[in-house]
């Protein structure tokens, strides 16, 4: 069995589509390479681990079944994220949003008593206070480590606009968190 782990994305896709012998192995390598990013994206958008696991599986099933018909070249992670994004949008459309924080703002339970962990929880929770568009852009940039070119391709923006909006999302997040972090980091 050939070692496909060092293949470029384009070679993996070609092998997956065309090779009966190594196709499944190519899929396994793609899964190994991008499963964490896809799952992180879905989990942060949905905020529900159980549902995120289901959508995550569905994403790769659709990829497996449809890639030979729908993939037109371009970024592989972008293609996967697009599938996941559509599934998430459908899910959010069909389900009422769940408010992650209580009325007092950052009053949710804190898992660890450690002060540092407490502030980290505040930071990750604050992500949900951003507009959906800004939140998604930040997730794509920071959680998935995507290039602005790929973000632009997925969201249909220009590269410059994607970059600007990611910066705006960061600034918004900082402005939300500054009152809380000022005591901690002055």
């Amino acid at each position: 069995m050939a070692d496909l782990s060092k293949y470029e994305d384009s070679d993996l896709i070609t092998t997956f589509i065309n090779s009966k012998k190594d196709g499944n192995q190519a899929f396994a390598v793609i899964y190994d390479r991008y499963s964490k990013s896809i799952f992180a994206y879905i989990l942060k958008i949905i905020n529900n681990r159980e549902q995120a696991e289901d959508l995550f599986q569905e994403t790769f099933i659709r990829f497996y079944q449809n890639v030979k018909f729908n993939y037109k070249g371009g970024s592989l992670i972008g293609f996967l994220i697009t599938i996941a994004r559509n599934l998430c949008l459908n899910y959010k459309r069909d389900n009422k949003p769940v408010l992650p924080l209580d009325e007092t703002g950052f009053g949710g339970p804190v898992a660890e008593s450690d002060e540092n962990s407490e502030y980290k929880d505040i930071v990750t929770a604050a992500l949900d206070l951003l507009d959906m568009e800004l939140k998604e852009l930040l997730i794509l940039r920071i959680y998935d480590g995507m290039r602005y070119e790929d973000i632009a391709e997925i969201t249909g923006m220009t590269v410059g606009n994607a970059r600007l909006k990611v910066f705006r999302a960061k600034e918004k997040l900082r402005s939300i968190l500054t009152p809380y972090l000022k005591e901690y980091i002055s």
Partner: protein
Amino acid sequence: MQNSEMINEFLDGGLLPADEDNFLMMLAANDELKSEFKRALFIDNTLKEEAASIAPSTKSTMQLFSALGINNSNFIQGKSFYGKTTELMVKYFKKSIPSIITALIVSAAVSWYFIESKNNTTITSKPANELNEPLLAANSYEPGFPLMSSYQFDNSAYSPRQANGYIPVKTNKIQKRYKSDDVTLTNPLEMNVPVAADLNEKDVIFEYSNVSKDVLNSASEQLKSAYLDFNGSENLTGLKNNEGKKRFSVAFTGNEDKSLKNVLYKESSHPLLARNGLEILYNLNEDVKIGIDLRQEYFFQDFKKYDEKGIWSQYYQHPNLFTAGLVAQIKITRLFNKTDLIGKVGMGYNKAGAVVRGMIGIDYNATKDFGFTLGIENSNQFYMGGSALYVTPKIGLSYGVKFNL
């Protein structure tokens, strides 16, 4: 460009080198900008840390591959589990190359000196009637081979002179390994006396001649008890003599571990011997040893304190430290031949603070001169950050090659 824009660009890697220098100079001069930058960095790092910690469950992965009809034993486990385990082992192996090389060189040199050179020794054996002293009947440095001495016969009231000539004691196996031309080997009684058969050692057949049956039986009993008394010792000269017992063992050790507190932060670079150590133990008795433990090792540290400008700051570091300590080793039980289950506890001190550790593992004695240890070790570093006490635990493998002196 506003402060926030410059911070964004800097964290995003979008500043030109010249602009980066300007930004760093501004950062050094402007406390407000510095605070804002620290908060931005904290947010960025927190999100990245969370991103790194998110992964789909194994169950989810298995269900997916099952739904797609892909044999997961070939791909999921092969790629994700075994693949990563192999990758991890290769990574650790690469890291431990310096200690392995050190251990191999030292053990090879000592093996050559203590074992090979002595294996060439011809057995000293002379006709007993020319002597009025204990006769060395056989000696062996073969691992696990029972050692013996003619002194046993002296203690059993069987002296060389009473035997009318010489002590015709030999072992078949020894004869094959060592030349002993000046001993006449006969066995008129056709009596074989097996000894050590119940000691997990190789059976050795002793043949006697010119010896009465009573004396022979007595001698064989003495041989058994002699061997039990002198198990592991060298240069035996008497039944109750402990001379030659190994009192010290020196071990060249290594450790491979992971911090239990934070596995994401990069270790400081250290060129050589970053995970090596030296352990010198004194044998209080067969079961208990005490000694010193010197080693280089990593401990992750995170703590908060005021920086040089009086700003309350969070610190992360994964330094390489030299720790000196005391260690006690106890034999828990014998697992099988030459291999003991052991436990170790230790306390030490390094530049950061106190270290407390415990280890459970095996102690394999390849020969009486050297052996190996391998175990799972937990270490805890206690240290101060500002006025607060912190502790950071780690767990991993501890291994070593030891030499008994």
